[in-house]
């Protein structure tokens, strides 16, 4: 990236297949305008998101990681998002503990009908990431 170009945060978004992925789709087909910074990756369930995915995304240069799943109680697999909530709470705490800015990792519940909410989540995330600048702490020094 040249000096003149403005910094654009790169977001890796892990979206659950049943809700958030469909929600992002709805945002698209409803023609809701939202920043194009998020790269969506569809996963079967938010509960399937391993801490390794998140660390790996940061290692490969993501400025922020978003994990989004169904609302509590709506999980297609009954309890996947309950497990995600507990597990990813630990990941969030650990990232903060070693001194990675808290705003770099975010979780949200977005249902298939909430296109507008997905757009808002991404919009807010981008706004929060912008002042933090590029993520260099966890990025691989050698690739």
């Amino acid at each position: 990236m040249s000096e003149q170009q403005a910094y654009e945060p790169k977001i890796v978004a892990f979206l659950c297949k049943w809700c958030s992925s469909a929600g992002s789709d709805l945002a698209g087909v409803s023609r809701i305008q939202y920043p194009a910074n998020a790269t969506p990756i569809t996963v079967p369930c938010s509960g399937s998101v391993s801490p390794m995915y998140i660390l790996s995304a940061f290692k490969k240069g993501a400025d922020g990681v978003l994990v989004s799943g169904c609302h509590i109680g709506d999980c297609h697999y009954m309890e996947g998002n309950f497990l995600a909530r507990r597990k990813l709470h630990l990941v969030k705490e650990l990232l903060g503990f070693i001194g990675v800015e808290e705003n770099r990792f975010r979780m949200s519940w977005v249902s298939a009908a909430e296109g507008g909410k997905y757009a808002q989540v991404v919009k807010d995330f981008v706004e929060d990431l912008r002042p933090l600048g590029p993520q260099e702490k966890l990025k691989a020094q050698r690739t």
Partner: protein
Amino acid sequence: MINIQDIRDTAKDLLAKGEVRGVIGWKAGTRGMDAEPVVITAPEQADELVWDPTCYHNLALYLVEDRKFLAHARKNADKPIGIVAKGCDARAIVVLMQENYFKREDVYIIGVSCENTGVVAEHKLARQLSGFAASAAAFAGDEFSFTTAKGEKKVPAREVMADRCLECRNPFPKEHNATLGEDKTGRTLAAPFAALAKFEAQGGGERWDFWERQFDRCIRCFACRSVCPMCYCDECVVDSIEMKVLPDTTAEEKANRIRWIERSADRSENITYHMTRAMHLAGRCVDCGECERVCPVNIPLRLLNNKMEREARERFGYEPGASIGGPSLVASFRDDDPGDFIR
């Protein structure tokens, strides 16, 4: 206080009656005062066993090794194996049983209570002995007694104990077949998570500077992984040993195999390795502190594991090593788990 002869007699008795096929314990080591782990298989070897403030090792590790050895030899154990276990060792054994690594009847736990003491921290002791190396160490009530070239020296245990022991609340093995020593569960020699609280009082920037320095030093010797009884995976996520390289495996296939973490000792890889390890130990780490003790570059690994332990305790009411039948931390949930960080 525990009479060392009681441990030896218990082990001798078990072996003589043929109730166990061996006893894992500590014997006098060859490096100064330090004890070393030993497996005895005959009653007459029982007199080798020792119990002193240098019995640092978490012996649960050797139950894991034993299990792996049996699996490799495709053998079934006909009898349980005996193990001398401190409070932390016993908690580790409980976690292993909770994960069905072996069954309760596969192991005979001879519990030893640390009472009001624990194990020695070498760096603290060095300051007390003014340069003289100790050749032997022994419990003496609330003191430790060390034999040095200048004769015997008694030091209050509290001053030379390892931090992990000072912060330990459960110095008594709750799960046991036989126990020696007094039950001092709930003792408080130092505030639990004292070091963690002090560290967390700093801002995010200072915390990062600290960890950056620590992780830059890591040489990836994997001593922390080797010494941990919970790190029993046959294939660690760090090294993909299971990739079958056949004559027709293309260079592309080899290059494209999934590598979550590289083995090179770069900071980014080191951070990913240690963070992954902390996550894998969340709700499983019993804070035996062995990883920190064996680290050749003195990375304070206990901080990471303590952080996870405290989160589990405060947010989810979970205590590792508390019960064999209970669910594990990340495989269970409650309806009222904190979710206020989720949008």
